[in-house]
Structure formats: C-alpha cells, structure tokens
C-alpha cells in the first residue's frame, strides 16, 4: 500500500510541471499587459513613465527566457511570486481566499451526495416509477441549466420572494450565506451523481450474484445493503472524486455572482488585469487540488476494492 501511495503522489509532480509551463507560455503570449490594464477603463489618461516604471519593477521588459528562468527557480522553492496589483505574496492572497473556496466546494459536494445518491438509488430500485421519471428529468435539467442563470433564479426565489436567505456575500461566514451559492454549485454534481448511481445500481441489480443472493432467500434490504451498495460504491467514489476536484474551478461563476470571496473570483479579476503571478499561482493551486483529490480517490479505491491494489 505504501508503494502504491508513493507512486501515485510522485505522478503528481510531472503533471504540475507541465501545467506550470503551459500557464507561463500562454500568459506570455496573450495580448495585454498589467500596466496597460490600469488605463483600460479610460478613467485616467495613460502615463508612459508609469508604464515604464511598472514594467521595470515587475521585470516585464526582460527577455522571455530570463523571466521563465526566474519563474521556474522561484517555483522550485515554492515561491509563487508577488502580485503586480497588490504587491503582496501570491501565496498570501490565495491563503486569504482558500478557506472560502473550500467551504463552498465541500458544502456543494455534501449537498450533492446527500441528495443525489439516495435519489439515484431509489430511482433505480423503482425503474419507470414516478420518482424515477421525476428524478431523471430533474437530473437532465440540472446538468443542462447554466449555473449563472440558476443562481439568479435562486436569488429571486429564496432572497427576494421568500426572504429566507441573504442573496449575496460572505457575511460573517455564517451558514445562511453559504446555502444559496453551495446549492447552486452543487446542482450539477447532484444531477450527475443521481444519474450515475441509478445506472450503476441498475447494472448491479441485473448481475448474476444478485440473482444468486435472491435465490438464497436473502431479503431485498440485505441485498441492497451488502451487495448493491458495495459494488456501486466504486462508481460513486469515482464520480465524487472527479466532481469534487473540479468544483473549485467551476466555482468561478458562482463566486462572481454571489460575491463569494473564493479563489475563483480572484482568478477572474487577475486575468482581466493581467496580474500574471496571481493567475499562475491560482491556476496551479486549482490544478493541484484536482490532482490531490484524484490521488485520494485512487487510494480510497485501493481501500474499498482490493482488486485495484493488486492490479
């Protein structure tokens, strides 16, 4: 198990290196600079001296290869650089926002799990029933509905019409502020989990060993608990892992809409003003998060299904 764990962890390193290089190259060639972005809203006249001073301060007038060397050297020392805009270390900016992003992603995933998996199970146990039909229509709608639009609908309904919840913001970090953005973000993984669970359960229910269990006189409840649930678990863990890993990236739109102070909104703002160190650092953290979650999922596979460890 230790070798398996170490191997999976070491596999993260080349992926991170490739991603870091790609980010650097992409943001070195896209048009627009941080200095130019300061005048982009037209609210002040361009100041060539200031542009020159900023480009010099941030090393933007150095050759690409020199900037690349500095970037890689810093990265190797776990230094994500300094923000052009705030002049603070990028790692501090990410730290300030990371907890809010994690809160949102965890809450969305919990919501998706708690609602999606039981719905998928029940729909599969009663295929063709009203519950099954409603669940699948809901799942398709959840997958196809744009999150921004869904978020607005939730705001109108739960904040404006019913006045149950605040429509925006982090507030003092209370649970009430978290509900609307988390539910909006959780709808897509919920729909996916419900569909995946239903398909997985139906598949297992038709397997030979289920028929054998039934013919041995085992009760329906025991069959579901001992055989169906355990066999579907790998599928659910896979879906949860993939979705959970990508939730922080997906949260960009939700964070903007609900004025939620996560790293998604930090990324969007930083791209717009070409604050390249923050863009690079934030994307790297999102990718790292995805990889860590996937590695964790692989390790969980090994724990719940010994066949995977043997392979």
């Amino acid at each position: 198990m230790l070798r398996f764990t170490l191997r999976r962890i070491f596999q993260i390193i080349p992926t991170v290196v490739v991603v870091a290089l790609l980010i650097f190259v992409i943001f070195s060639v896209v048009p627009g600079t941080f200095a130019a972005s300061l005048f982009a809203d037209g609210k002040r006249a361009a100041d060539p001296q200031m542009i020159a001073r900023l480009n010099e301060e941030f090393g933007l007038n150095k050759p690409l290869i020199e900037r690349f060397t500095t970037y890689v050297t810093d990265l190797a020392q776990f230094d994500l650089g300094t923000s052009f805009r705030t002049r603070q270390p990028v790692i501090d900016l990410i730290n300030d926002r990371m907890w809010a992003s994690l809160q949102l992603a965890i809450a969305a995933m919990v919501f998706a799990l708690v609602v999606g998996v039981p719905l998928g199970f029940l729909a599969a146990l009663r295929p063709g029933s009203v519950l099954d039909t409603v669940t699948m229509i809901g799942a398709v709608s959840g997958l196809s509905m744009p999150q921004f639009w869904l978020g607005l609908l939730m705001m109108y309904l739960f904040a404006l019409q019913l006045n149950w919840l605040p429509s925006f913001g982090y507030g003092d970090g209370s649970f009430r502020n978290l509900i609307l953005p988390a539910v909006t973000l959780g709808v897509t993984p919920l729909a996916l989990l419900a569909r995946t669970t239903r398909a997985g359960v139906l598949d297992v229910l038709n397997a030979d060993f289920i028929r054998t269990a039934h013919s041995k006189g085992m009760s329906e409840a025991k069959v579901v608990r001992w055989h169906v649930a355990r066999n579907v678990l790998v599928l659910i863990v896979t879906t949860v892992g993939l979705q959970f890993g990508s939730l922080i990236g997906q949260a960009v739109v939700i964070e903007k809409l609900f004025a939620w102070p996560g790293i998604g909104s930090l990324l969007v703002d930083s791209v717009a003003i070409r604050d390249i160190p923050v863009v690079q650092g934030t994307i790297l953290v999102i990718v790292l998060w995805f990889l860590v979650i996937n590695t964790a999922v692989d390790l969980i596979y090994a724990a719940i299904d010994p066949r995977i460890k043997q392979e």
Partner: protein
Amino acid sequence: MLKTLTLAAMLSLGVASGALAAGERQGGTLVFTAPYGSSFATLDVQASPNTQEEFITQAIHRALYSWDSIQNKPVLELADSEDVSEDGTVHTYHLRKNAVFHNGKPLTADDFIYSYKRIANPKNAFPGASFIANIKGADDYIVGKADEISGLKKIDDNTLEITYTGPINPGFPLMQNTTVIYPSNVEDESSFGKSPVGLGAFTFKEHVPGSQVVVEKFDKYYEEGKPYLDRINIVLMAEDAARDVAFRNKEIDVSILGPTQYQAYQGEDALKGQLLEVAEVYTRNIGFNPAFEPFKDKRVRQAINHAINAPLIIERLVKNKAYPASGWLPISSPAFDKDKPAYAFDPEKAKALLAEAGYADGFEFEVTASPNESWGVPIVEAILPMLKKVGITVKPKPVESSALGEAVTTNNFQAFIWSNLSGPDPLNALRCYHSKTAQSACNYTSYASAEFDKLYDAAQQERDPAKQNDLLRQANNIVQDDAPVWFFNYNKAVMAYQPWIHGLVPNATELAVQPYDEIWIDETAPDSRK
C-alpha cells in the same frame, strides 16, 4: 442644456437629501457597494489608480483638496486657507489645526512632505507620481536625481509652502485618491496596506478579502458633528444582476445601474423616484488613427460623424443612459460650449464629404473594441449598417479591455472605441490634444493643430478662470471641427438609493464615489441599519 442638466442634478440632489432641513439623524450602518471588481487591490490607496479603492479612500483618508460636487470644482480640504503668489506658482497653505490621524498624531506640514515624497519615490512606481510632478523639483526626485522635492517647504508645523511648476490649479492633481496624506510617524510602511491610518471620518475596522471592508465612525474627525453614520460596510459586488436582487431585497443601500436596469427602474413606481443621475466626465468615442490613409483627411472623419445616428443608438442600445456628445469636453465641464451644435445625422452630407475627399466608393476599416456594452463591440455593430449606407465597411476587432489599452497606447490600431476621461479639469482634459503630448500618453489619435496649441498655451498661462475657460472652449471647438474622433456620448451615471438614505451628491467625477461623512439614515430604515 447645461442649465437644464444643472437643474436636474440639483433636483436629484434634492431628492437624495430632501430631509436635511428636518435634521440629520446620527447613527446607523450604511451598506455601500463597490461595483468595480471582486476585490480591493490594496488598502494602501496611494499605490492604487483604481476607482475601486476610492471607496476606501473616501471613508478613511483625506487629501489637501477635495472635490465639491455642488460647486463642481476642487476645494481646500486639509487647509483652512491659502495665500497665492502674484505669478500663481507659490501657494502657502494654513493647515487645519484640529485635524488628527486615526493613530492620534496631529496633522502637520511634515505629513505632506512625507506623503508626497513617498508617492513620488522612484522605488515605489506609484501612479500618483504624475500628479506630484506638478510640484517644482518633483521631476528630478521621481527619476532619482534629487533627495528632496525642492518645491515643498515647511514654514512651521501648521504652514506649508508649495511651489508649482506653473500657474496651475493644484486642486485637480492634489485631490486625487493617489495623493492622500498619510501620517509621517508610521515606521513600517507595509502596515498601510493592512491597517490603513488616515484623517478621514471613519477608521479602518476590518477587511475580509474578496468580500468587504468595514469602517467605523472616528470621534476626533475635524468636521464638527460629522460623520452621522456609526459604521459603513463597503461590500464588493461586481455583478449587475446580483446587485439588482440585493438592492430590491434591501440588503444594500445604493446600487450603480447599467443601461438595462436603468430602463427597468424607470418603469417601476417604487424605484423611479430613487434615482440619482449625473453627466460624468467621460466621453465615449471612436478614435481615428491618422496613419491610416483615409483618416488623414478631415473630411472623411467629419463624414463618419455625419453618417452615424448617435441619438438613435443612445436611445435603443444605451437606453438613454448617456447624453449625445457634441465635442470632447462633457456637459459638466466649465468649458463646455452649450451653443455649439453636435454633428447632425446627415448621410447625404457624409457622402458628399467622402466624395470630396476622394472616397466616393467608400473604404474599409477596422475598429478595435472591448466587449463593453456601452462603448464596445455592440456599439460598433450598431454603426456598421449606418456607415455601410455611405459606402464605408467597418470590421469590429474584439479584444479584452487590457488588450485594448495596450493596442491604443502602442498606436497599433486603425480605429478604436473607448470611454476616456474628459474632465473635470478642462485644461488637463484638453492636454490630450496638444501636439506635444505623446501618443502613448493620451494623444491617442496623434492630433496636432497649431491653432489649437496656440489657444491651449494661452489658456495655460491665463489666471482668470472665466477667460481661461473661454480659451479652452475655443480650443475644444477646434477639436470638434477637426473630428479626430467620432463623438458618441457623455456617460450618464445613475445610482439607485434606498428611501432612507440622505446626503448623496451628483458627483460628476464618479457618481459611485460619495462623501460618506455627509450621508445619514432616517428612521424608516430597517432595524439592521439603524
């Protein structure tokens, strides 16, 4: 038109501050929105040129001058009076004796010298350095050739003498967000970005990155009886649609409106009386690059101005959230010429002008444009059929906002569409059309006119404000006749406010930025605000 606008502004003001006579109420919490992004770049506002940080500045800091929205001009803020030398270059300021920083330090001349040196320090590359450059000797200091700014002189603790490079109105450069005064007794300058200390009516309480800044009433503020509010939550809300819901749900007290919301709010009885409008100091335009052959000819540029029906676009696309532009200087500028008519929509005249210029068969050009709904690709798409009718083919070249800035300041365009600062100081606004102003600075259309330069130079030397404005008015009319740009519109900024809010002002420099120390909340506010 100017009179009408001023009246409208005053009426709006009357609505916003109608209950002033009844007595301002002390206490309460204002929930104010900062709509220009999802974060504050820094709390060290001297380092930031962004509008977003001005929301913090208004609460926590003060500069030597401030903008008076009612008088529409800069006024002394941190000095009780000033003496000006015969030639207008030396100003002696008698500083406020009752002004105290939030850390308890009384304001002295040392704080000004410290702050202006910090802003101009070549190691800092702060945006306000260009404003400090108006002080004699600052240029040398900015490039590291001098250890002091020679134009700054402390007479005593309460008297400061500043020598400027010319007879300018120092109110404009020294009222800026980036030229506020910091205390000179703070050893660790990095603390300005984490726990700001200023002279403003509110002290810094808390910053939740990406969410809000909270400030609280400063009991030793120098204005007697102010501020009225106990606390302000300055919340970050970049999304229009989300702001709309929050405003209707009474979670926020003010909201800046876009064109669509403006139209919707005007149609609702409960909201249409709660709008504050002002003509801001931005001119939306399409700039023509004279390096592109057809744009060398003035008649071609004039033809484009005649060929586009700007009022129609303003009505249909911008939902009347703008005023049609006649020239460069906006309606709220003291040098605006209300008698000078705008280019009339006249396609036949446009065709005739094109034929005279040798372009009877038209030509094709590219407009670099950002996605902005009021001055970007949608507007270019709207003018496309209009120019097609006179034989001109327009091709939009969509770019991101920061790429637009880069393309324009590096002269890499045939034409661009942008919104540019055109006030409040007409002298500074028209500087962008002086032939000595670099293209990369703000003379984006490489404009050069000897006649204009002569008038502008005369205005620069003129000390009588009325005569100066008259010269600038003439200079502005020359720019209009030469049409280096298509004059589209002047922005009409609109702010919706809750009925319990009073003291808002029609700030033409940026309506979203309000003097918090003037604002108060009446008894009808929800309990969460009282």
